[in-house]
């Protein structure tokens, strides 16, 4: 297992280097100007040229790339004399991105399994035309349209709730919590809401109550209420307004994709002989699902999920810049628009690390469940 993990990490690091190399060349060749260009309004051309020379901005690209990589290892992801956004600004977008990405994934994966779980094993091999059509519809909805259609009503609805419960933003002099605590509580509140939604959908569609989810919900509830006061909770709830909207739009994307993936995979598994044998032996519907279908679904699902991660990142950029959520996606959009190549490279690095982290986690989990992957 250690050998497997090491191989995965080394291979992923190589991919990151190649990706960053391509992006560095693409940004520096394709986007006009460099990170010093915004200074042209404050300096003369001679001063700017001298500054460029002293900072090595005129050096060949490969030299600048390796200098950037070295600075990344030294802990500065946006090196340079003039920085519109520094490394700290960029690092501060990690938490907001995770705050919406993890709940969206959790919600989408849980909802996407419903059409398959609602089907009897004997009918699993048939086409699920209704859910497939709805999913294709969800994938093809353009995010700005979703925002336009639900945004105003959502805002009004949330504002009514805030007014009813008298939730208002606390004055600055009363705030005594750190950014980390605030971000952590925001994440916990979002996860809590998503858990309630999934428990509710499980109960409505499958008539089951998942005890693991119940315990997780209880644990998060206790953590929130034991470690926070009214001021913190108020501010967190106000902050989550935009997060809910972002999660809703992102989840629409993911649900569509995951339902289609699950339907195709389950349909192909249902045609396999071991399912037929299990049915012939008289196993119950739930037993066949638990022991034969769900476990075998994970492999192809994980592979497909790993391959579609760049599209996940694409969705992140589109949705975040649509809802103005202050995560990596929207910041990347802004940095590219502002020709801030240094900051853009920093975000590319973080996005690549995030993608690779998710991919390696999926691979490890896959290898843990399926010994054939380990041996291969």
């Amino acid at each position, binding site marked *: 297992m250690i050998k497997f993990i090491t191989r995965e990490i080394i291979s992923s690091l190589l991919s990151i280097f190649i990706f960053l190399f391509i992006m560095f060349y693409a940004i520096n060749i394709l986007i*006009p100007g460099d990170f010093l260009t915004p200074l042209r309004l404050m300096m003369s051309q001679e001063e700017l040229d001298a500054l460029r020379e002293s900072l090595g901005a005129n050096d060949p690209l490969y030299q600048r790339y390796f200098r950037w990589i070295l600075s990344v290892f030294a802990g500065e992801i946006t090196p340079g004399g003039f920085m519109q956004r520094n490394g700290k600004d960029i690092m501060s977008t990690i938490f907001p991105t995770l705050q919406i990405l993890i709940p969206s994934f959790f919600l989408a994966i849980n909802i996407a399994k419903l059409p398959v779980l609602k089907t009897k094993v004997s009918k699993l091999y048939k086409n699920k035309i209704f859910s497939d059509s709805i999913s294709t519809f969800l994938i093809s909805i353009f995010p700005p349209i979703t925002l336009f259609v639900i945004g105003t009503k959502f805002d009004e609805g949330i504002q009514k709730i805030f007014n009813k419960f008298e939730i208002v933003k606390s004055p600055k002099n009363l705030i005594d919590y750190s950014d980390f605590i605030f971000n952590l509580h925001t994440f916990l509140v979002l996860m809590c809401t998503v858990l309630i939604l999934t428990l509710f959908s499980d109960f409505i569609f499958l008539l089951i109550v998942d005890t693991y989810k119940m315990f997780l919900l209880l644990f998060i509830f206790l953590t929130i209420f034991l470690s926070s006061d009214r001021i913190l909770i108020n501010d967190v709830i106000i902050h989550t307004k935009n997060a809910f909207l972002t999660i809703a739009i992102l989840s629409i994307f993911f649900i569509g994709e995951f339902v289609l993936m699950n339907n195709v*995979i389950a349909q192909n598994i249902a045609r396999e002989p071991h399912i037929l044998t299990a049915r012939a032996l008289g196993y119950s519907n739930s037993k066949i699902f638990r022991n034969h279908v769900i476990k075998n679904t994970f492999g192809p699902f994980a592979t497909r999920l790993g391959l579609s991660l760049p599209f996940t990142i*694409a969705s992140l950029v589109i949705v975040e810049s649509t809802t103005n959520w202050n995560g990596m996606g929207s910041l990347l959009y802004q940095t590219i628009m502002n020709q801030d190549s240094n900051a853009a490279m920093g975000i590319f690095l973080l996005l690549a690390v995030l993608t690779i982290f998710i991919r390696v986690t999926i691979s490890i989990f896959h290898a843990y469940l399926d010994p054939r992957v380990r041996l291969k």
Partner: protein
Amino acid sequence: MIKDLIQSTYKTYYGKVGYICLLTLISCSFLHNWLLGGVWPENIYDPIVGFDLSVFPHPTTPSKTHLLGTDPLGRDVLSMFLAGSSPLIRLSIISFLVGLSISLFFGSTIPFLFKKLDRVIKETSSGIILLSPPVVLLILGTGDFTDVLKPGTVGLIYGFLSGFGVAYLVVRSKSLEIANSEFIKASQLIGGKNYYIATRHILPVVVPYSVSYMLASTTYGILAYGFASFFGQVGWTPNWGMMIYDAITYGSYLGGVNYWNLLPPTFGFMLCTSSFYFLSLSVKKQYGISI
């Protein structure tokens, strides 16, 4: 092989819907050319600079002269909708064909013929799949390439990225799996040359994998182009992204939601993405492709 694919996918519900959507889009494109060629006066119905002086103020609701109304800038919505289909069809088809050719040719031959080169390409592909298409379009749009970013060029870039990225990796892994099959060993034993085996025995088996992946990827290409056009990164090409932007932005300036401006491009995007996704689904279902 392609003929078999078309025939077998057409048998499914998904295939039929996909082909119908695609044919509708192609018909829209031809219809626009025909209408603008002689039926519609160009100064009124041009999708970019057209303006109807006889109607005021714009936007107007659907009427006999403007079946889907006009937008806040006085352009005919039906003309814009029909014109918007052409760039997306060009983009999708070019992207699909480029990606398919690259992934099929390289994915079936290189892992089998050049093992060392295959390692290099595999790692490069793993790096390429981290590239997010809308981001690439944003970078190109921010530079001085807005005029060059025609749908065909975007399709070419997108096809290259998808073909050398995800599709290559999928086809490669399937090719390596087939390379260990008995019929390949038998073919090698009776003296079949590696190139012959790769193109005659391996390539036909991996075609459905590449086709299904490229069809699904094209869907994201369409959305990426829509996103780039929504933010004005693709120049003055008639497109649905710009229609949505105009409807939302100018519509709200003029104090109202113009759904007759908003619905046609939304429907267009759905039609276009659904057509390719349904076709991808039909290939997956017909050939039992799980991933």
